[in-house]
């Protein structure tokens, strides 16, 4: 157990370092000059050179990298090339917005996938199971942004039940916060839920074929109580793995959904940053996303141990 923890922590740290190098290197080779974008189309070469100097873009790349990394470790995200504002507070504010969206999407995905996948598995040879399976296939095929546009057309434009777009912080107006969150969260959650349903179905089907479950049934338990008492935990292990991976997908999906629903989250900050060649801001945002994904995967690894007693003993 301890060894496993140490091993996973080491993997996490190495992954973080490698990611930071990759993120930095990628930004360094991106075409387009941030100073020229900031100064406008007619800026003289001298003015552009001066601004590059102010940005510190003329320094050797390793120096720039270590300065950036050192800043991040101290909690200093730097100053935006374009807005001249501190990046840290912006990233923090936007991350909270995206976090709400991703969490709500994840909850919806789970709420949809867990029962639907279980029913699909338990009734995989019946009409109801096949019908659910067909619906989930459809869900897998629909991209989140398309789902968003369709939901807007129906619930906002046609029916007028919910706002088409916008964002209100929960502290400012909780009611409006929820109303504005519903459609984007559904866009993300339904699509992810459809994907997750396939995994839940497969995991439950595997469990249903196990001897111990047949034994439980032989004792007289009905199918669902048998599955609930003896199968769910085993079925959960592969599903948790997929959940970790899906979190990354949700974060990326949020970038697009934020645009469709005009939500000022991390995704819109990232897109603006790329467009303006606000490279430091882009580096910071990408790094925050990378850290979020790596940390979640790390936690998922630890969750295995909680779910699967076999992992708590032995060398692994």
């Amino acid at each position, binding site marked *: 157990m301890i060894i496993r923890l140490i091993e996973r922590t080491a993997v996490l740290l190495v992954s973080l370092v490698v990611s930071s190098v990759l993120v930095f290197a990628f930004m360094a080779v991106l075409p*387009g000059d941030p100073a020229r974008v900031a100064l*406008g*189309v*007619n800026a003289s070469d001298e003015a552009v050179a001066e601004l590059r100097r102010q940005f510190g873009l003329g320094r050797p790349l390793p120096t720039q990298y270590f300065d950036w990394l050192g800043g991040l470790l101290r909690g200093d995200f730097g100053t935006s090339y374009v807005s001249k504002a501190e990046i840290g507070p912006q990233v923090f504010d936007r991350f909270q917005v995206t976090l709400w969206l991703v969490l709500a999407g994840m909850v919806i995905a789970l709420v949809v996938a867990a029962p639907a996948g279980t029913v699909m598995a338990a009734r995989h040879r019946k009409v109801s199971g096949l019908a659910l399976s067909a619906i989930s296939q459809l869900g897998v095929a629909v991209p989140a942004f398309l789902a968003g546009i369709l939901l807007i057309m129906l619930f906002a434009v046609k029916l007028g039940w919910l706002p*088409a777009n916008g964002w209100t912080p929960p502290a400012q107006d909780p009611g409006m916060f929820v109303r504005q969150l519903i459609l984007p969260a559904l866009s993300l959650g339904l699509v992810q839920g459809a994907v997750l349903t396939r995994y839940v179905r497969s995991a439950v089907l595997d469990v249903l074929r196990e001897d111990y479950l047949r034994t439980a049934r032989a004792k007289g338990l009905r199918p669902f109580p048998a599955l609930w008492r003896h199968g769910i935990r085993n079925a959960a292990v592969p599903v948790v793995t997929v959940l970790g991976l899906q979190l990354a997908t949700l974060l990326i999906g949020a970038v697009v959904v934020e645009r469709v629903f005009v939500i000022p989250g991390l995704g819109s900050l990232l*897109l603006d940053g790329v467009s*303006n060649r606000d490279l430091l801001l882009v580096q910071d945002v990408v790094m925050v996303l990378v850290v979020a994904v790596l940390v979640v995967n790390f936690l998922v690894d630890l969750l295995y141990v909680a779910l699967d007693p076999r992992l708590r003993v032995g060398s692994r």
Partner: protein
Amino acid sequence: MKSSLIRGTLPTRTVALVASAALLALTACSAGSSTSPGSSPGGDQSLSVGLVAEPASLDFTTTDGAAIPQALLGNVYESLVKQDESGKIVPSLAKSWTVSPDRKTYTFDLVDNAKFSNDKPFTAADAVFSINRVKSAWTVSLKSAMDVVQEAKALSPTQLQVTLTKPSNGWLFRMTTRIGAMFSETGVSALATTPVGTGPFTFAKWNRGDSIVFERNENYWGTKPFFNQITLKYFKDPTALNNALLTGTINVIGTVQAPEALSQFTGNDKYQVIEGTTNGEVLLSFNNALPIFSDIRTRQGIRQAIDHRALLDTCFAGRGKLIGSMVPPTDPWSEDLTNVAPYDLAKAKSLLQASGAAGKTLRLRLPTLPYAISCGQVVKSQLEQAGLKVVIDQQEFPAQWLTTVFKNADYDLSIIAHVEPRDLGAVFNAKYYTRYDDPTLQQYLAAADAGDEAAQIDNMKKAARRISEQAAGDWLFLLPNLIVADKNLKGLPQNAITENFDLTRLARS
């Protein structure tokens, strides 16, 4: 040198490539609620305007981009003189002005009751400070418009004298743009986040990534605006912008991005659609430094190979105006030059054959802007009918296009909307990406800048005709000013020919 903004993510209202949008997303279905009347005409009514490009900063002295003056100029900041909708220069903080016989000294009489939002009175000393500050503290390239100023001095608290090194009509015109914005000496410490001006609105709040909120300046020296609060709400996605108006989240789409989507509003009694002109000339630019373009027959052949009406119908839903040179109809020297190089496929083919360009391959490097991409396809198709081969490649806008096409001139043809007012001279010169080196044109431009009004108009007409006849580029069309708004709103600008979106005249009937 004048600068020419390019329509895209650096848009002005005219530039605006993107559409615009809307309001405080306060309620799902009722933006701009009206309530009890107050001391001002509109009481505490509010309004939401949807726009496309959010400013990266609120400081246009150090950050380029048309979104900043679009929001702030005329609304929060005021200048000594401004442009009216017909293009005429009219008083603002200067009640009147005189020009010396040698046209080098301007004397402005200023209003005596204007105040900044930090409660400091506006005086000639602030005007001197603002003019000098352009030279000393501004970093954006537009600052060069102030290079011609030799000295600015306050003759009294309400009288300002500005002396130029040489006569320049262009200088007074530039004073109507952001260059002429008046600042308070004690109000420039945090321009990026806290603008302080004398305008009819004061800056209230900036929700980054979402909206900017203005409130009526109750101490405004002139006519107070109707609305107590106006929110500029920013949408990157044209569909989201349209949906926001359809669902009542905003009241106005400030600049329609996708004219083909207008049909959902034109047949609806709840909305009005306004169509006017802008300064945004969509230019098919030639890299005139390349040998292939040194033969005028190649350039003329390309111009005559393009069926502009068909192009406009295909790539901009027929909205917009055909122009034959770098002059919008609101400029005093505007003339119809669309017949200088009319569409004539047979003539185009023979010109291209004669110059030896037929069969050659040209690179059409397009910025990733919707109108450029769609018009680029039409241009390619029409030029290929005339015997050229055209290869399209897309350059991410702004960053990649600015470096490749604009700075390095590594292109044969490109398409972009030049949205800055009166930018003929800026766009067609040897240093610009068009690489157009023409001493005759420069003579006309210099004479226009130095002469009196009649000489200016006469020489600008010659200049406009010169670039059209010499086929220095091809003017595909002029971007329209397209606004969609709630039916009961009035005071919306018919033409978008200034850098700002004028919120001051908006009212509900």
